[in-house]
């Protein structure tokens, strides 16, 4: 049941307890208790919002593969995730150390952003790719 609650909440965390309970064939107070327990155990870390970036004038959706000096990883990661335009950040190993998904207005603002990311202490290399579409 926890998995099914989480499946619903990762797509829409605004669902009222009653609606989640109805879809799962349970009752609202059980759902509420389970969600609180999932938060307490750190399974649900926090809630975020999804934003219609186009309406903010952000036309370019870009992914940056970032390579980071391992001795400076923690500080560099904090600074990267604090960037306003960054919508998602993943810590990976294989191709790059961090993948960022971000939105920006135009090529000029992208160039500025890539430059400022490049100058973060510990960042070794930044490889931009365009996101054509999010399929899922």
């Amino acid at each position, binding site marked *: 049941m*926890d*998995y099914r609650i*989480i499946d619903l*909440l*990762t*797509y*829409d*965390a*605004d669902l009222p307890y009653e609606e989640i309970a109805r879809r799962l064939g349970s009752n609202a107070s059980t759902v509420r208790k389970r969600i609180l327990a999932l938060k307490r*155990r*750190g*399974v*649900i*870390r*926090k*809630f*975020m*919002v*999804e*934003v*219609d970036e186009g*309406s*903010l*004038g952000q036309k370019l959706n870009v*992914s940056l*593969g970032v390579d980071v000096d391992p001795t400076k990883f923690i500080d560099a*990661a904090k600074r*990267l*995730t604090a960037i*306003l335009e*960054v*919508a*998602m*950040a*993943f*810590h*990976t*190993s*294989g*191709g*790059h150390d*961090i*993948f960022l*998904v971000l939105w920006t207005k135009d090529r000029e603002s992208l160039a500025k952003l890539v430059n400022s990311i490049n100058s973060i202490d510990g960042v070794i290399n930044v*490889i*931009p*790719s*365009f*996101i*054509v*579409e*999010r*399929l*899922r």
Partner: protein
Amino acid sequence: MPDGTDSRIIGLLRQNADLSYTEMARRLRLNESTLRKRIIALRSKGIIRRRLADVNAERLGYKSRMMLAVDAEPSKLLDVGKRLAAIPQARFVFAMSGESDFLVVIWTRDNDSMAKVVESVGVIEGVVKVTQNFLWDRLK
């Protein structure tokens, strides 16, 4: 069109949408009722689309996580994209132009199930290369 104050509100909500209005108002140095009105307006205009839970995949029991970079034959890009988006274990699928054609985030319970998903991606008609990146964590 949203102004600078709206951008600051959105910036905070993107990091944490679980704060009380009082706490948000304090952090943004805004009046609480102004903040409330602005958030309601951003939602009714559809600028804030929805609220999502950020889940710790490992604590949820998804021990194996990968970000696959997938390359496809240019003539099969659309079909490959559809097939990737239909993988039940895929959390995110992005169609790209740049280093690779697709980025796919996969969560599975264990390494065996991950290997099966990776194999199933490899045999999709039109896929020419699958690069596996271990996914430690989502940072934002």
